[in-house]
């Protein structure tokens, strides 16, 4: 067995391969394994059904947020259409399952592929536009997709929505929170593994080069347009899979949730979690989902408590306010997000008592 790598007392990296390792120490490997064990054994038995529902929503959000982070954090293309792509994935899965009777295990990757194609179509403007012009183009994409989802009635049944047939995984039926818990988190870990390793390949490095300086990247022989499209495709694939999981988990879908507010929520996850950090996307998804649930709970509590209800104040707008405040405070105070905070906490423990 090779020598265990523990915390070095400085930066002694000699090769790029050392710089690129996923786990810099074997502690990280150990703790990840322990974390996964707890995730798959203890958590589902300890959590109440409501908790399990929240955890599942966190998982779905994390998959979509990872995709958006590949686009925004690694390639530097700001997209305001991620919520709509999620909708495309959800509708693709619903239509495939209910109309074409495609078996369930195939609908999720197929929905991802369909969404990837749609995403690449809406990524075409990135060939000519960058920065805020591209952002506005994706904003238009959001509205156009939303319009199509509502008004292409022969395909999407319009505002009535689609009810999915019960999900069958091979022979046994997959229903309830627990079954989906395993499905969502196995997907999440698989896609997270792909995302982390993607950033270490030539594709990931090309994305980062485009983000940091597109002209220099082009000068070094990276075909920018193709890589940007690829990035849009990969990011939409993640969104599509998340949307498909969402649709099958919920059992029925309408256009309602896939609006601009959802796109904004995903960008908030990516920023609050940490731009350019795959683990950060998961932290961001946890933060935003829990914030949403906590605010819903709080406003419900406030509305029902005697004093506030008597005063006639409407507490629901408070949610919107706190959500905006969280985004603003993170941007002003810690723009690199929770991933950076976590790194600071970790390194201050590591360097204690000489943490300067």
């Amino acid at each position, binding site marked *: 067995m090779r020598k265990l790598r523990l915390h070095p007392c400085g930066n002694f990296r000699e090769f790029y391969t050392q710089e690129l390792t996923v786990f810099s120490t074997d502690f990280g490997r150990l703790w990840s394994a322990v974390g996964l064990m707890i995730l798959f054994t203890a958590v589902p038995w300890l959590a109440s059904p409501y908790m399990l529902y929240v955890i599942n929503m966190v998982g779905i959000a994390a998959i979509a947020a990872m995709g958006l982070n590949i686009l925004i954090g690694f390639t530097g293309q700001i997209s305001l259409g991620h919520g709509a792509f999620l909708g495309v994935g959800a509708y693709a899965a619903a239509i495939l399952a209910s109309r074409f009777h495609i078996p369930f295990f195939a609908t999720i990757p197929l929905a991802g592929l369909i969404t990837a194609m749609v995403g690449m179509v809406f990524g075409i403007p990135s060939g*000519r536009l960058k920065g*805020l012009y591209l*952002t*506005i183009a994706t904003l*238009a994409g959001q509205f156009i997709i939303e319009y199509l989802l*509502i008004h292409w009635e022969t395909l999407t049944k319009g505002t009535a929505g689609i009810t999915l047939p019960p999900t069958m995984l091979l022979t046994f039926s997959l229903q309830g929170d627990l079954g989906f818990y395993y499905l969502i988190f196995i997907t999440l870990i698989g896609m997270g593994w792909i995302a982390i390793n993607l950033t270490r390949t030539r594709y990931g490095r090309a994305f980062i080069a485009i983000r940091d300086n*597109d002209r220099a990247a082009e000068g070094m022989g990276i075909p920018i347009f193709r890589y940007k499209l690829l990035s849009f495709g990969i990011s939409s694939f993640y969104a599509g899979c998340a949307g498909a999981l969402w649709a099958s988990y919920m059992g029925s879908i309408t256009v309602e949730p896939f609006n601009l507010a959802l796109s904004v929520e995903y960008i908030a996850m990516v920023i609050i979690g940490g731009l350019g950090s795959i683990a950060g996307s998961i932290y961001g998804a946890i933060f935003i989902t829990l914030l949403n649930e906590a605010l819903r709970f709080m406003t419900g509590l406030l509305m029902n408590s005697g004093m506030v209800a008597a005063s006639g104040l409407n507490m629901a707008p408070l949610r919107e306010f706190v959500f*905006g405040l969280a985004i603003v405070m993170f941007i002003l105070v810690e723009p690199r997000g929770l991933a950076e905070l976590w790194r600071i906490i970790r390194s201050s423990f590591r360097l204690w008592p000489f943490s300067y």
Partner: protein
Amino acid sequence: MDFFIQLLVGGISVGFLYGLSAMGFVMIFKSSSVLNFAHGELLAIGAYFFLAFIVWAKLPFLLAFLFALLGCFLLGILIERIFLRPLIGEPLIFVIMLTVGLAAMFKGIILFTWGGNLHTYPSFLPEALSVNWGVVRIPPVYSATLAIGVLFLLLFGLFFKFSSQGIYMRSVADNQRAALSLGVHVKRVFALSWAIAALVAGMSGMVLGIINGVNVHDLSAIGLKVFPVVILGGLDSIGGAIIGGIIIGLLETFTGGYLSPSLRDVVPYIILVLILLLKPYGLFGLKEIERV
């Protein structure tokens, strides 16, 4: 033919409102290149200030108008000072997301204070302002709007052309570093441009409120309609914003009238994508966009 003329007049008046709402947006972009997603909320805040002064404080119309403008002006300075100044030189996404966060905050505050219902102002415009010309009937609000819009356009045209502050603002918009080295107080210019932009946005919000009633959801939706308008007119052209607004307004009413009412809301965005692909700097914008 009557239907056509009605649509034409309706389109121009709606479009003029879009143009008017876009003016403040263009001003912010022109001087600090910030893409303001909170613009709709700024419109709403102006309208609600006016509402508060005229309905709650029962001030006379003109005084309420001036106070509301003053409130917007101060709010603009505050926004720049607290939220945007720390972000000078930060990447684009932080600035965009900051304005998105601000939008959510403002919306929350407005909903908390005034609720989501439709409010209306007491009517105060004299009937004499209305125009009757054959089939064309223009209600007094629209002629007043036209007057206010043209007045503000002229005022700001003159301000940017001749006043020293206006020239500073243009110099900062043109080249921040050069302006800084020539002794322009860039931070003050940013503050001033946010203040003026908030003032213009507030004014547009009041006008929209007079015409359609005050409702935060409608006004923030108009804040998003601003994007096609400014892209069409050119992101940094104030006159272009008005013309872009009129074109978008006409397109909307004609698609609504002749094709299908549901297509009406999405047409501006389809145009937006086409314009971005064909002529990204808009009809009147400077051709300085970077291509890759």
